[in-house]
């Protein structure tokens, strides 16, 4: 069988391979190269050292990891619930899919700005709370003095903005589960929760894996929402990379930050592949 295909599959793979090499592998190695040079272009650890003693490095690392840890489970639960609603074939399920997917069409920065108008001191949230008589004077939500409050705001904005991409992947996964499996479960008397727990989730493992890997990598890169909501009150790795590249104009330290993001992404991807191995019977 394979012999009859000959070289055809490999030839067909070439375009995507070239694309990956050109636009992913090459810049990746370039970034590592830049990170290992000083601004004069000599190979040294100067830029890495500069990054490590950057005032905001540890802040940025902690905040980025905290965001990933907080956003991911929240989004998975929300996306699963949304996917089940869409998949339940309720009346107007097409409408649900449409509504849930709206945030996909909104850029990260625009979403951040929308949330600023909600959380700013003279914003929607304070107006509503004041009109309901719940608070006497506006609360400063975006205060640089409370890191966890700022992180909470970013988590809310990110959950709103980027849950739908996970939902889409899960909906696709749900729809590819053969109905016979669910019917068989019903015959044996499984309830809704048992069907979700014993049939859907195990069958969804490949989709979940894709969603987790994708979302984690994107969460490591988050910065526009953070800049919009927290300004210079909160630091994330991608934000520091941007700062060093555009404001401070030092590409080497910026590349060092990018390299940290890259390493974190690779490590987390490997961890997910290891923690959630897809067994053969789960591949549909």
């Amino acid at each position, binding site marked *: 069988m394979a012999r009859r295909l000959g070289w055809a599959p490999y030839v067909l793979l070439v375009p995507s391979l070239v694309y990956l090499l050109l636009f992913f592998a090459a810049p990746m190695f370039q970034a590592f190269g830049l990170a290992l040079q000083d601004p004069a272009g000599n190979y040294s650890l100067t830029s890495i050292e500069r990054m490590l003693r950057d005032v905001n490095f540890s802040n940025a690392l902690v905040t980025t990891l905290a965001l990933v840890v907080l956003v991911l489970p929240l989004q998975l639960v929300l996306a699963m619930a949304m996917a089940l609603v869409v998949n339940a074939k309720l009346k107007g399920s097409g409408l649900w899919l449409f509504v849930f997917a709206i945030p996909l069409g909104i850029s990260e920065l625009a979403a951040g700005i929308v949330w600023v108008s909600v959380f700013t001191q*003279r914003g929607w949230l304070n107006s509503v709370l004041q009109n309901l008589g719940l608070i006497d004077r506006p609360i*400063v939500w975006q205060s640089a003095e409370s890191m966890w409050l700022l992180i909470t705001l970013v988590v809310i904005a990110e959950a709103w903005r980027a849950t739908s991409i996970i939902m889409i992947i899960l909906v696709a996964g749900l729809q590819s589960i053969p109905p016979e499996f669910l019917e068989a479960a019903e015959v044996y008397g499984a309830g809704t929760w048992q069907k979700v727990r014993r049939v859907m989730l195990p069958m969804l493992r490949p989709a979940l894996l894709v969603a987790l890997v994708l979302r984690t990598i994107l969460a490591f890169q988050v910065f526009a929402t953070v800049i919009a*909501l*927290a*300004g*210079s009150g909160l630091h994330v790795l991608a934000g520091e990379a941007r700062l060093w590249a555009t404001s401070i104009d*030092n590409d080497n330290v910026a590349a060092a930050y990018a390299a940290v993001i890259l390493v974190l992404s690779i490590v987390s991807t490997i961890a997910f592949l290891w923690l959630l191995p897809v067994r053969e019977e789960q591949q549909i």
Partner: protein
Amino acid sequence: MHTHARSRLSGYLAIGFAVGLLVAACGPAATSPSPAAPGTDEPMSPSPATDAPSGSLTMISSQLVPVAEAEKMQNTILANFAGEVQFVGADSGPFNDQIRAQEEAGTGDISLIGGLHGEFSAFAAEGLLMDLSDVVAEVGDVNAEYLELGKLGTEQQIYIPWMQNTYIMAARQEAMEYLPEGADLNALTWEQVSEWGAAITDATGERVLGFPAGPDGLWHRFFQGYAYPAFTGGVNTTFASEAAAGMWSWLTDTWSTSVNPQSTTYSFMQEPLQSGEVWIAWDHAARLIEALRNMPEDIVAFPAPAGPEGRAFMPVVAGLAIPNSAPDPEGAKELIKYLLSAETQATTLREVAFFPVITADLPGDLEPGTQAEQEAIATMTSASDALPSLLPIGLGDQGTAYNQVFRDAFQQIVLDGGDPATVLPERLPDLQATFDASGAACWPPDPPSDGPCQAQ
């Protein structure tokens, strides 16, 4: 009367800037450009602009970068120019990169550069800029001190002054009743501002002082041109001094009692002033103007307060220069003449609140917001304790790293609660590195230095 006030203002700013720069020029490394004179191997006139789109001219600028300002420049200020102009506002990093990249390639789109004295002195030192002596006669009555500064101490006219500005204060009327007893709004001290803010916090429970400490705010200029010189009499030579530690303690106390903690999200103070989140603010005049224009009855402009060493303020003079590699130098010269005409200078003032550098009377009256800013600036620059503190000179592409030192110190001391006595010495090496890398000598108000400025 308006026009009289205008030329007076122009004069004061000019004197402040000129005095400072002349002191700086005493330092040997200050400005020693190696201009690209005819006869050097530097290409004076590039190959004819055959590859440039005919009739379209590109101007890159480190000024008027915010989208709203860039849009007004492109669509209103440049609208009546005979040719087509593409205005590109660029942050410091890309600004330096693009100009140097064009010079290295020997060809490119940029015909005209709008920038600051310090930026031009770096470009001129690398021989990137064309002599504009022939343009001077054609632009007419530009402020003479500024023109002299544009020569960077050479025989050639390296840049032509374009527009000027500075940083001031603004406050909402409801703050006035809390002004400390006996305090004069036009001659405040920074200590009085703290008392003022604290009084409002006591009365209302809200922290209403505001600073542009957001990612795109000009917060570093507050330290370089206002807080440091006002409290220590210098910037770089007093960076880690006892007086500096005192200034940081003052700011930390003020911040925790009366500065709105949302300040780290503000890039322009005109918005929080209008919404009422902030009652008293410091910022660039062009970043306060919308508040003063939209609410002239409710918001007042006033001079920057003084510290123990004087009423420090930072005059900003932007200029225009043509790179040797310009594809259309003649078109660029026409554009310089256009930008310096009385009509365009008046439009610039109206649209983006940058003040004129020409001495001629401007057509039309000023509306109240601009008028208020102008009076505040005139009072500030002519105050008996005025202490002009210049934008960095000679730092070139180290300017951004220089700014970051001040922002890092702020982060560590005020936001993270560090002790100035330990944080400031920690930041000194970063500060010194920018002088060593650029060779920049000290500039006023620091005393002139032999060789690179020595941070202390």
